[in-house]
């Protein structure tokens, strides 16, 4: 047990530190970086990393340090919003489906349908129809993720309501809403939190992919995806341009995933007992 919790902590803390290393500078971007991420300075084109431009400057002479930090804001906002929307929608639909069996078959078939929509194509279609915006990015990423949450929550509800302690609560006349609040939600939450971290990591990656393909947030706003796409072209001239956004992206996704693993180990008492 003791050994288990220390291992849990190491992955949990490592994740938290990595995520914090990206999150804090991104949030403090306006104070950390004096340069305007959108300002075009032709004389600084492909400037090498140095005191002037910490991470160098890109093909239009924009400050990469500043763009990376602001790009982090985009990534983290997309990750957070997608996670919140997906979990809120998915948990509601999944719980309804698990508790009200008549609805179940219909709801689950709709979810199967949603799962069949490829996120990238949806993003391209939405961008073509409504133009690029944060909204289209969030909708495109969240749509195929919602069914995953629905499936998890539904199966949790189905198994938890058969638990003997739930039956025991029924047997002492605990009203149904209280049973849900007291016995089902707390025992379903850990798995949901862990899934949420994985969805967050996936959303950040997908956002970068969309940016790379040019169907993410509007191209003038910095995002790690569109920065990588632009840097790709000038890779031979200025290889550091592709390095920094990629590095930040990797650290963020790794951090979120480690945090998820740590949470899973600490929140799941069955797993903790086994270790």
């Amino acid at each position: 047990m003791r050994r288990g919790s220390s291992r849990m902590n190491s992955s949990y803390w490592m994740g938290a530190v990595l995520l914090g290393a990206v999150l804090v500078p991104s949030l403090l971007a306006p104070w950390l970086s004096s340069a305007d991420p959108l300002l075009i300075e032709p004389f600084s084109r492909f400037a090498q990393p140095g005191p002037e431009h910490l991470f160098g400057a890109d093909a239009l002479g924009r400050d990469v340090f500043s763009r990376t930090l602001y790009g982090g804001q985009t990534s983290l906002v997309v990750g957070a919003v997608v996670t919140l929307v997906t979990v809120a929608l998915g948990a509601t639909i999944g719980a309804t489906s698990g508790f009200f069996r008549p609805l179940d078959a219909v709801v689950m078939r709709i979810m199967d349908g949603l799962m069949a929509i490829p996120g990238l194509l949806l993003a391209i279609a939405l961008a073509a129809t409504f133009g690029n915006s944060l909204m289209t990015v969030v909708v495109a990423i969240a749509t195929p993720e919602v069914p995953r949450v629905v499936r998890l929550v539904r199966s949790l509800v189905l198994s938890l309501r058969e638990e003997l302690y739930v039956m025991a609560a029924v047997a002492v006349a605990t009203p149904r809403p209280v049973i849900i609040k007291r016995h089902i939600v707390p025992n379903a939450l850990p798995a949901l939190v862990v899934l949420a971290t994985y969805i967050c990591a996936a959303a950040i990656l997908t956002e970068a992919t969309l940016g790379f393909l040019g169907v993410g947030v509007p191209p003038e706003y910095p995002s790690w995806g569109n920065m990588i796409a632009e840097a790709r072209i000038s890779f031979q001239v200025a290889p550091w341009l592709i390095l920094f956004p990629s590095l930040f992206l990797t650290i963020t996704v790794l951090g979120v995933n480690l945090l998820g693993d740590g949470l899973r180990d600490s929140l799941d008492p069955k797993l903790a007992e086994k270790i």
Partner: protein
Amino acid sequence: MGAAKSVATLPDTVNKALEVENLTVTLPPDAERRLAVDDVSFSVARNEILCLLGESGSGKSIIALAIMGLLPRPVVNVRSGRIGLNGQDLLALSPRRMRQMRGQQVSMVFQEPMTALNPLLPVGDQISEVLRTHTKLRKKERRDRVLTLMDDMQLPDCERLYAAYPHQLSGGQQQRVMIASALALEPALLIADEPTTALDVTTQARILSLIRKVCVDYNAAVLLITHDVGVAAEVGDRVAVLRYGRVVESGPTRSVLESPAQDYTRMLMASVPRFQPRTGNQPHHYRLLIEARDISKTYVGRSLSAKGRQVQALRDASLQVYEGEIVGLVGESGCGKSTLARIIANLEQSDHGEIRFRGEETKALIARDNRAFRKGLQIVFQDPYRSLNPRRSIGQSIVEGPLNMGVSSQEAWEGARAILEDVGIDARAVTRFPHEFSGGQRQRICIARALAMQPALLIADEIVSALDVSVQAQILNFLREIRDRSDLGVLFVTHDLRVAAEICSRIAVMRSGEIVEMQETQSLFESPQQDYTRSLLNAVPGKALLEGTAIELVDQTDRPASCAKAD
């Protein structure tokens, strides 16, 4: 059987197949105790069955694994000692040599035959596998050998069963297949680890007599590991009683179990339910509490094929429980006894039939006043590990019901502390969580939760089945006490007739969803009306020994103390 036994008990000291000398096995440093097995010595001759008898955590399975060379190293290690098999020291063998020994010289049968068999292979091929690995027999010869083995295991229609898959066999047949493959190479030593614990009592009796028989037929030494005194009494030539990794007492089964020399063995024997109806179980009140009439229930399985498989779980089952009595509902697994219990508790719905609680139809009562019904009727389940919400303190679990009934918070918590003391758990533990307690303690907490409602009827669904015999005895005593000091009626669901005989005034015997017989305990034991009841009675292991002797009870006052440690 008596005759076979007396022949087999002839001391065959010349031909000791297994000799374990001063075996000591260490546990990891953070374990409850330092040594899993502490200086244990015993021997088994060919044609002899030695039973290692012990409660959970006594180290009996570790000994088996040590002999097999299957200890989970490096977590658990043999520190010292010698394990001799036909004069060869198994501990000194190389891993490769040990692999050859397993199967050829030592083999093992486990508790759950279903999990030990590969679900994707026909059972005949699985037995044949052993022969293919260890012998040079040709395919045809292997098949003939397997068929002979299966026939020896008294499996029916061997040609057909050869090609059957594990799930198509009953639990007893699966265990026979396991024994067949363990004996395929005619090993010197067969280790059987709780081989009948997962089986019904009638199946258990047949498997035990099979083990007896093959022990002689195959000239093997058998080491049988069990927690059940009855099983040891039934098949053991000799018995070694284990506790905390030490041999407390050993010797010929009869002398050890009939006149135990050690306090622990005496306590163990006193805890074993006598196979005799106890007196003093007659109800002292005669008001009808609950009456179930003609309850039927059919489960319709949902499957991919259009028509679902139907299972009739209950057929016109009827029973009554009066105030102040404990009624047993006895049957083998899958007979529908738990379904009936849950239907009576309104946790499942019947297809038809009527249940009256204190004269009022329960459906109507629930519609009128659910809380009154729930307050009057409580249920405790078999599995104490799943019955408590792991995220709530045991106090929170206990006060939940009383709070629902409108009892004030302060009163409910005081009540929870009092009831915990009643079931033998320190009241200060109310703020602790379920994982901090052992299985026996958890079950007592579950009982406390039910009793905190001060119910008129308690449904006890296999509440002692998962517990060690000493803990089981405490809980039965406690139920008896409660019944005597209040008018509590109990519906006691169990698969174990011995336990039912201990505390029930009347017993209903159930088979395939029907109650085949319901009688006062005494007359049920003396003159069972149904063949099925008779076969259940006859199948109880160790019957002869347990019936024939009246073991002197140790002083009742020192029992809880000595049991508490084992708990």
